[in-house]
Every structure is written in C-alpha cells, then in structure tokens.
C-alpha cells in the first residue's frame, strides 16, 4: 500500500542490545519512529522498556554495555563522543521522567529549569531566557506563567510539576521527546490533562514522542503505533488500534485480557445479609495538626476528613475511590484505629470502637486486618516468609510456634504461594509474590474485614489480575468483608459491590457499583470516569482518528 505522503524516519534503532555485566537486559531489538509520530512502548516491570528509553539519550550507567545502532538524523548516536551527545540532549532529543517531584531540583524555581536549557543550548541572556520561559510555560498550559515562573517545585501540585518538566524538556523545540511513564505518579484527572498536552504538542509542533508505559489503556489513548516488550525483546509491533484489537502474540493477548475493565472475575457467593451493618461510620471527622509556637495552641490544621457517613455490610466489598489527598486512606486508618476521630464515631457491630479497651480491643484488631500498598516495604526484610505469616498468630497468643508455622503453610497454599518460598526472604520474591505474603499475613488472624489499601497499584497488570482473582476467591471461601481502597476506577468497578467516592476530605457519592459508574450523580464522579483511560473507549477513538488521518 502506498501512502500519499511518505513519512520521514526520525529515529532508527537497529539490533540494540544492552547488558549489565553478563546479564542481558535488552536483546537485539529494532524499531523506528517517524517524524510526527507517537510510538508507545508497552511492557511490564523488567521488560527493559525504561532502559531502552534511557539508552537513546546515552543516560545509562557506566556499567552498561550497549551494542547495535541508534540512528538519528543520519548519525549513529552510539558512536558519538560525550561532547557531541550533550549537544543533542535537550536540543534534539529530550526526556520527561516518571516522578516530577524527584526529577526537579527542589532549590531551583520552575522557570530556572526551563531557562537553563535555553541558556545552555541557545546562549540566551537571562532576560531573553526568562521571556521565552514564560512562553514555554504558557504552552504547557500553566496558568499565570508570569507568576508561576518564580515558584519552587514544592509550591506546585504534581500535575503542575509534570507540566514544568515537559516545558523544560520541550523548551528548545526538540524533535523527539522520550516520555518514561510520565503520568504514572499522577491522579487520573491530572493524567488525562497531561496526555492531552502531549497530544497537543505532537499536533502543533510536530513533536515525535516515544511514550513508555505499563498502562495499555493510556498507550491506546495517545499513541499511533505500539511496540510491546517482554524480557528485553519486542514481541509485537504495529499500529495501536490493530495490535489492541487483534493481538497476534499470546503475551499481548494476556496483557489485554488482564486489563481490569476486560477482566472476568468469578462470582462471589455471599451469605444472607444481616440486618445491621458490620461497620458504621457516623459523621466521622479527622483533623491533623501540630503543636504551635506557644504551649496549648495548634497550628497547620489539616482537615483530612469531614463528616463522612458510610456503612459496610458483612460480606460485601466496598470500594473507596479518590485522588491523592481525598481522605480515602484516612477512613481506613480510622477504622484500623490508627487515626483518632475529632468528631463522630465508628461502630463495629453497633459498638463504638473508640471505647474498646484491653482484650476487646485486641479482639477487634484481629477482626480487622490491613494489606498495604508497597509489598516490599510492609514486610520485614530480615524475616523469613513463613515467620512473617506466622508472627501475628504467635504475638496474639493464638497458637504455639509449631501450630502457627503449620497454619502459615496452609495460608501459603490458600494464597497460592509455593511452599518452597517458606524459607526465603522478601527480597527474593517478586512484587506480586510479596503481596500474596501480605495477604496471607493479614488472613492469619482469621479476620472478618480486610482493608486493602492500593494493594495492586504497585504491581503489573497481569499480576494485578491474579491478585484480584485471589481476593475474589478468598471472599467466597472465607466470607470476608473487603474494603478496597484504590485510585483505579476500572479495578474498583470490577471488584466492588458498592463504591464511595471521596474528594477533598469529603464523601461525594456513595452507591452500588453500577449506579455510580453508569449513572453518576455528582459532576466530580463524572469527571473521574471521563478521565480514566479505558481501553475500549480508546480503541473507538483511535479507530475514528485513523479514519480521519487517512483522508488528509
């Protein structure tokens, strides 16, 4: 097929291999990017996608050995000297990173970051650079750039920081932008706007983008073409809508099937509903403050939660959704009695949990258990897996050491962990396996309620799918009540019976999953739903835009 306008190749990667010592990370991959194209690089952790991205700019650590050819603008980037490479970085190819908070110098203003590129590459004076930086900040849609130019990173929101970083990367009008998971650390509504911005820069400036992401739905929304990577190899490559609609490689199929919105979870057999709810959260308010300068005074009062009312029925799974700072984790902490209410109360089977003491309190603590977001950080690195699972039973005096170890083995079987792992340390396990340990440890005390705080957000989608299936099975087998806290709407929709939406310390909407998703009442819920990238919707859109593309 002959295209009317033959596209110009901008980047040509041939037989690129990267190894650290004897460990090959990227194996003989080849791909290209046309001028004005957005290429998505998708893969899970360890697939080599970020390393590939960094190698394009020569930013790998010295220990890495790189072979092959990276053709850009008729030059082989791998053959260039350090000096020549520096002239290309930021000028022709630049990069945007995942975590804007750590990739901006905390002691430099937002404008300073943009200005240093301009001054370095174009030799502009401070005054010229400042004027241009204001224009650049306006282009990346920062409001009041004249004022924000002098703001320090800590004074800006996460989305604003990421815009600033995109601004400092695109200030010199590079032809290629490498974006390494640029929206992963951001809330969905912010993510949607950053994706819009990147699309906008691509259309107006003809900026080519290599967009690295683990999130297929995000890639589907933004990219023209997709490369799927696994274990350092490219398993599939092609136009975005083609690959996502009819994947040929089985790994691509697995990736697509693991998308929460396409996931099929087994149904849960629930016991008959009790008359009174298991947990009642009644007009709960929580404020954080620290001691003021003078004794007896408090300052910096933060209202983490304002007058929230909700109930949790026995056996149900309640989803708590919201963006960072919305108060969703605060609710969980309060139910765990880790945060003191400043108003209202929480009742468990009709009893105010603030009044529990002694044995009643430790009994309550056994009944309500929590699984945490980061599977590595929430396990003691020096403890064997089996001990980590058995510890709560021994601590609560429920079993002798031998009984506890026996039960821990049984729990490992239940969470589908091979028994060979019993003597290993957390570092020897993958993220998903560690999260299974976390779940097994929480189940060790035979709880009635399991609070899962972003348990899958640090995991790859295929692993996330496994963990969700596991939780679903445990709900049926153990009649568990689950409070599932997440920022990911598609996961919550699949997994939860009812959903509570939080925003800015307030409960904005509460209802059954279908009601909240299909007939949202609040405008914020609607905004959340629109912002969340969804594979099916993205496919419809790429289909439409491709048709439009073909006409011109």
């Amino acid at each position, binding site marked *: 097929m002959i295209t009317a306008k033959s596209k110009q190749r901008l980047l040509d990667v041939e037989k690129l291999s990267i190894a650290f010592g004897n460990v090959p990370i990227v194996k003989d991959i080849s791909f290209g990017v046309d001028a004005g194209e957005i290429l998505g690089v998708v893969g899970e952790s360890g697939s080599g996608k970020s390393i590939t991205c960094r190698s394009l*700019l020569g*930013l790998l650590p010295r220990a890495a050995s790189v072979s092959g050819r990276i053709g850009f603008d008729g030059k082989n980037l791998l053959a260039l000297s350090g000096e020549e490479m*520096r*002239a*290309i*970085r*930021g*000028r022709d190819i*630049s*990069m945007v*990173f995942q*975590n804007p908070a*750590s*990739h*901006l*110098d*905390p*002691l*430099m203003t937002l404008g300073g970051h943009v200005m*240093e*590129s301009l001054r*370095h*590459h174009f030799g502009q004076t401070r005054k010229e650079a400042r004027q241009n930086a204001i224009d650049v900040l306006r282009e990346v849609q920062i409001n009041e750039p004249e004022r924000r130019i002098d703001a*320090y990173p*800590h*004074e800006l929101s996460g989305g604003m920081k990421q815009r600033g*970083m995109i601004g*400092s*990367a695109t200030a010199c009008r590079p032809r290629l932008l490498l974006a390494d998971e640029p929206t992963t650390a951001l809330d969905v509504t912010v993510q949607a706007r950053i994706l819009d911005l990147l699309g906008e820069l691509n259309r107006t400036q003809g900026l080519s983008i290599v967009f690295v992401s683990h999130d297929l739905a995000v890639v589907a929304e933004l990219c023209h073409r997709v490369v799927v990577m696994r274990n350092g190899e490219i398993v599939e490559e092609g136009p975005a809508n083609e690959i996502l609609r009819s994947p040929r490689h089985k790994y691509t199929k697995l990736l697509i099937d693991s998308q929460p919105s396409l996931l099929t979870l087994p149904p849960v057999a629930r016991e008959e509903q009790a008359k009174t709810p298991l947990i009642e959260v009644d007009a709960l308010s929580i404020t954080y403050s620290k001691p003021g*300068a*003078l004794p007896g005074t408090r300052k910096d009062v933060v209202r983490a939660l304002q007058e929230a009312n909700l109930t949790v029925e026995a056996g149900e799974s309640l989803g708590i959704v919201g963006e960072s700072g919305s108060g969703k984790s605060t609710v969980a902490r309060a139910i765990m009695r880790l945060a003191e209410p400043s108003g209202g109360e929480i009742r468990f089977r009709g009893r105010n949990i603030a009044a529990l003491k002694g044995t009643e309190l430790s009994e309550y603590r056994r009944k309500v258990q929590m699984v945490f977001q980061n599977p590595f950080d929430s396990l003691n690195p020096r403890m064997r897996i089996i001990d980590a699972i058995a510890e709560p039973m021994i601590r609560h005096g429920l079993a002798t050491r031998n009984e506890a170890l026996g039960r821990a083995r049984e729990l490992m079987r239940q969470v589908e962990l091979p028994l060979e792992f019993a003597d290993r340390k957390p570092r020897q396990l993958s993220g998903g396996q560690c999260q299974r340990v976390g779940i097994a440890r929480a189940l060790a005390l035979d709880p009635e309620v399991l609070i899962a705080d972003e348990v899958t957000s640090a995991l790859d989608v295929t692993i996330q799918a496994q963990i969700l299936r596991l939780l679903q099975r445990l709900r049926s087998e153990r009649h568990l009540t689950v409070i599932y806290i997440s920022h990911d709407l598609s996961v919550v929709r699949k997994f939860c019976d009812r959903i509570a939406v939080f925003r800015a310390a307030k409960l904005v909407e509460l209802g059954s999953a279908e009601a909240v998703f299909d007939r949202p009442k609040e405008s914020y819920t609607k905004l959340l739903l629109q912002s969340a990238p969804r594979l099916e919707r993205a496919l419809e859109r790429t289909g439409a835009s491709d048709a439009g593309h073909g006409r011109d």
Partner: protein
Amino acid sequence: MSSLSALGQRLLQLIPVLIGISLVSFLLVQLSPGDPVRLLLGDRATAEAVAHLREQYGLNQPLIAQYFSYLSNVLHGDLGHSIRYQMPVGSLILDFVPPTLFLIAYVVAISVPATVVLAIVSARCRDRWPDHLIRALAILGMTIPVFWLALMMSRFFGVELGWFPVSGYGKGFLEHLHHLFLPAISTATWLVPLLLRNLRAALINETESDYVTASRSKGLGEGYIFRRHVLVNSVLPTLNLLGVMIAFLIGSSIVVEIIYAVPGLGTLMVGAVLGRDYNVIQGLTLFYALASVIVTLTIDILSTTIDPRVKL
C-alpha cells in the same frame, strides 16, 4: 511579611530558653561546694567580716530572692561584680571576647574553604586514590588529640623554628593573624575532617539523585550540574553542622587558648572556675548560651535563604 512574623515568633520562643539557662547557671554555681567569701577573705577572717561581706554581696538572702535580684540585674545589663578582678563582669567579658571571636572567625575562614575543596575533590574522585587519601587524612585529623597537636605545633613551629609566637594575641590585625595561626590550625585540624565527611556524603548522595539525571537529559555540562544543582543541595546539612560546631567552639576553645596563652574567654572561664568567681561563671554561662542561640538563629536564617522549603 510572614517571614518577619516567623522571626518574631522564633525570638519569642527564645524567652523561655533564656530563662531556663539563667536558672540553671544560677543554681549550678549555688549548689557547687566552696564559699567565695572565705576564698576572698582567707581562712583566718573573723565571723563579722565574713557576715559583712556576705551582706554586701547579698549572699545571705534566700536563694529565690538572690535569683530574682540576679535576673533583674541581668535585664538591666548588670552581670554583677567579679570578686576576683574587682570589676563589672560585663566589661570583663567584653575585654576577653575579642581574641576568642577572632580565633573562631579565623578557624572558620580556614576550615570552610578547605572543607569545600577537599569534599568536592573527594566526591568527584570517589573511590579513586585522591578520595582514599583525603579520607585517610581526615580520620587522622579527627583522632589526633587537640591538646597534643597544639603542644607539638607550638614546640616545633614556635620554639624550634621560631616562625610563630607561642603565646599572646598581639596588637593589630596582622599581628592577630600571626599570633593565632597555630591555635587556628590546631582547631581546624579536627573541624575540617568532621565537616568534610559530612559534605562528601551529601555530595555523593545528591550526585545520584533523579534531578541530576534529568539535568543530564537536558544536555547540561557535568561541571554546571555539579555547581548549580549538586553543590547547592548538599551544603545545607554541613551548614547546620558548622553552626553547631561554632557554638561548641565558643565554649570549648579552652584547651587551645590555655596552651597558646590566648587571653580569651576560655582562659577567663578556667580562672573563674578555679577561683570560684561566681558572677563571672554565671555571666560567662549566660554569654555562651546567648552566643549559641544567636549562632543557631543565624544558621537557620541562612538556611531559609538557601532552601525555600525551610521555614523559621
């Protein structure tokens, strides 16, 4: 003017601190054994003479009354009268302050540039021979006792070679520089390694931070990145340590001052303690505390100008 009000709040917080210090310094001296009147009059003084002198100095009043009269005097700028020197403690301290302050400024002027240069060399040549050499010397500098080093240097450079005077303070700026060179070097020998290790660790830590990678991705030169990003982000912990060390030096220049016979606060303090000169000890304690508070406050204000995230 939020920064001004923050400064005002900081100053308000100092009041209870200062009251506490005055109370502690007052009680410490009162509770320690020895009677200044007996010391002044000798063992063979008559009971009437002792009683008379006690009344003259107000030593026969209840403790609490003595404290309040002390406090009110201090607030009027009167630190009392030195029993030994027979002059007001305030002017006595002022007489002894210049050599000590000069010495500390001298030490800082030598230590800070040396620290910065050595730490940068060490961090940039990490795990290569210049780094190993600097770190080995630093450990040596920290482990040599100050009194021993001071004695040896005074003997060798002062007595054997005769390059530097071994005692006194001299007259005029240049003579001060000449007289205090050996004391300053002896002090800097343990101060520099302390600061150096701190700064080196911070530099290495910051070199590996994400914003350095981001700066490289913009094509900025290594030298620029180091100066503009890494160094600025690294100095804060070392600056705070320097503040603590200066406050410490004001009160602990005793060893060096005694060995080199510098007429500074350390010399005054030792004389006052041995002579049970209550008012001088109290005055000095208060002065040390005040100096520490001022140094800390200055460092905190400096920190806010470097790091916009730091609040007073």
